[in-house]
């Protein structure tokens, strides 16, 4: 038997083969297909065109529709697109539509998938969004696909995938208390570059990784696409199982690397040596340390998205913001409705997060969505509409990513963003964290 990595094992299982090797093209069974309001309508259009108007999806229970991108906007086409998802769910009797203006509405799909129990160890999750890789934190194969591939999966439940070789990243020791998962992944992307993992799987391992919460692990897996990666993956442990308990009733089977499994590369980090890290405009691999950028004056700060808008991210931001005032416009956007509720309930030093952000002078959206992470329609909350200099907990800082091309975006952890919001310049959170 060939010794396989976690990614190879999942793909072999889903292909019904005893083993696979990197480079093999295999037909893989999908366990879950996710689409949203930006790519769903096109996917549905292709599905109907190719399989016929009367065609049924391959498995109603495995198709998940999560409108999240352009929700709180006056844009009529954006509303029309949600209508297309709704009509399709009606026609096909799909049970998993998390519809706008209903109590089921969730917000950002990658966080919603986890919260609703759709991210399960050992499975294959395909989604029409490049950050679908986030779910690799749950020990599954998860990757982003286009509309045509998604329409094919919708009709057949299968997709031809090339098995990626695995690059392994091991973090030894414990991270310092001023370092977050965002710093770890920005460190990696800076080391290997925005195309350093093209076509590859990235495995995160080591004591520092396995000590992270699920939400922090999701931050690691979320940004593998920023290095060109196909998927990210982390072993399953008690933390994984505890998160899934009560969220899914389905049986799942975790996978481990076989002894002797081959990695294309293995890179080791001393977690104790990591420092608060920033990606400068206009590329996620344009790395610097926060303490080196004290001269950079900011005009705004942004906390939100699938990368940096989870409850943990807001707790971390609140630790820095508690009892302080921001010096620049600071936007707070919860990723999901659960996170939005959490802002009222969760406390830091006895104070609810929402109160901490209000007292700090932040501009808070209670509406959960992707919002300005990718710019969006002109009226999107927090969108960059001019030559702003923004520090953000989001994932991309390409030209124009958050709106105007004249804008500059620095990517950083919730600690660093909060600290920088207070001083109005890029600030190492050690200056403010007690």
């Amino acid at each position, binding site marked *: 038997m060939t010794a396989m990595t976690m990614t190879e094992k999942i793909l072999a299982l889903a292909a019904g083969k005893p083993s696979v090797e990197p480079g093999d*093209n295999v037909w893989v069974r999908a366990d879950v297909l996710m689409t949203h309001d930006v*790519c769903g309508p096109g996917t549905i259009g292709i599905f109907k065109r190719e399989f016929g108007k009367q065609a049924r999806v391959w498995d109603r229970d495995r198709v998940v529709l999560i409108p999240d991108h352009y929700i709180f906007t006056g844009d009529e086409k954006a509303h029309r697109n949600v209508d297309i998802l709704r009509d399709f769910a009606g026609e096909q009797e799909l049970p998993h539509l998390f519809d706008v203006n209903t109590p089921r509405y969730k917000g950002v799909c990658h966080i919603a998938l986890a919260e609703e129990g759709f991210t399960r160890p050992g499975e294959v999750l395909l989604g029409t969004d*490049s950050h679908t890789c986030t779910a690799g934190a749950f020990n599954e194969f998860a990757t*982003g696909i286009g509309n045509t*591939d998604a329409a*094919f999966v919708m009709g*057949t439940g299968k997709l031809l995938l090339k098995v990626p070789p695995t690059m392994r990243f091991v973090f030894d020791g414990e991270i310092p208390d001023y370092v977050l998962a965002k710093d770890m992944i920005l460190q990696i992307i800076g080391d290997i570059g925005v195309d350093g993992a*093209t076509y590859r799987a990235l495995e995160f391992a080591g004591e520092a990784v396995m000590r992270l919460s699920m939400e922090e692990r999701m931050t690691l897996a979320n940004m593998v*696409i920023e290095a060109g990666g196909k998927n990210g993956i982390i072993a399953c442990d008690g933390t994984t199982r505890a998160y899934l308990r009560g969220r899914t009733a389905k049986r799942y089977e975790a996978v481990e690397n076989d002894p002797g499994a081959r990695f294309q590369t293995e890179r080791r980090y001393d977690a104790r040596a990591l420092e608060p890290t920033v990606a400068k405009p206009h590329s996620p691999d344009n790395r610097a340390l926060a303490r080196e950028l004290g001269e950079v004056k900011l005009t705004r700060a942004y906390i939100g998205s699938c990368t940096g808008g989870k409850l943990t991210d807001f707790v971390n931001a609140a630790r820095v913001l508690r009892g302080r005032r921001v010096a620049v416009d600071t936007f707070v956007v919860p990723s999901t409705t659960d996170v939005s509720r959490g802002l009222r309930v969760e406390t830091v030093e006895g104070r609810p997060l929402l109160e901490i952000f209000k007292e700090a002078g932040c501009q808070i959206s209670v509406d959960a969505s992707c919002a300005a992470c990718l710019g969006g329609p002109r009226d999107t909350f927090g969108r960059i509409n001019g030559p702003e200099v923004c520090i953000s907990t989001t994932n991309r800082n390409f030209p124009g990513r958050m709106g105007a091309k004249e804008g500059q975006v620095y990517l950083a952890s919730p600690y660093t963003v909060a600290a920088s919001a207070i001083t109005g310049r890029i600030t190492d959170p050690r200056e403010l964290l007690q």
Partner: protein
Amino acid sequence: MSTVRGRVYVVGDNIDTDQIIPAEYLNLVPTIPEELEKLGSYAMAGLARTPDQPPFVPRDAMKTPYTIVVGGKNFGCGSSREHAPIALGAAGVDAVVAESFARIFFRNCVATGELYPCETPVRLVDAFRTNDEAVLDVDANTLTHVATGVVHRLRPLGDAGPVIAAGGLFAYARQTGMIPSAASTPGADLGPSAGPDD
């Protein structure tokens, strides 16, 4: 179609999908014909252009005069939005020739059959200038600079070539019997065979 002749548009490294089609236009649905045409008119609207670089789609036009885009490394990085290759195709582009491609963009080119994503073993962004005329021969894997006659070799498309030539994933799947040619839901008859190499 195995050759493409036309003017080239030259861009740099890491041209991401936000530059190819800015997110504010993602409210347009590619399978709706008039919205597809509009997507084409916004192709490369997000490009951080240099002062001497002409617009990709001229003002008030719906199409681009350029049929081949020549790029550097990691073309199409970022989002999985299929709107990116679709917008280029709708604008009138037939091929992108780049040093390397981001995985999902490459895959979307193949699945849609919209564009030839051709990789070059050497960097060509300095060998061409925007508006130069070129001939791409997909069978011979060459890109010829018409004015100088210099022939640049391309990497073979591999498994992806026949899929693009067939017109995309669905057309290819029907051609090879992977899914039935009539519109119906296929099931377990999907066998392993050559296909879109991502």
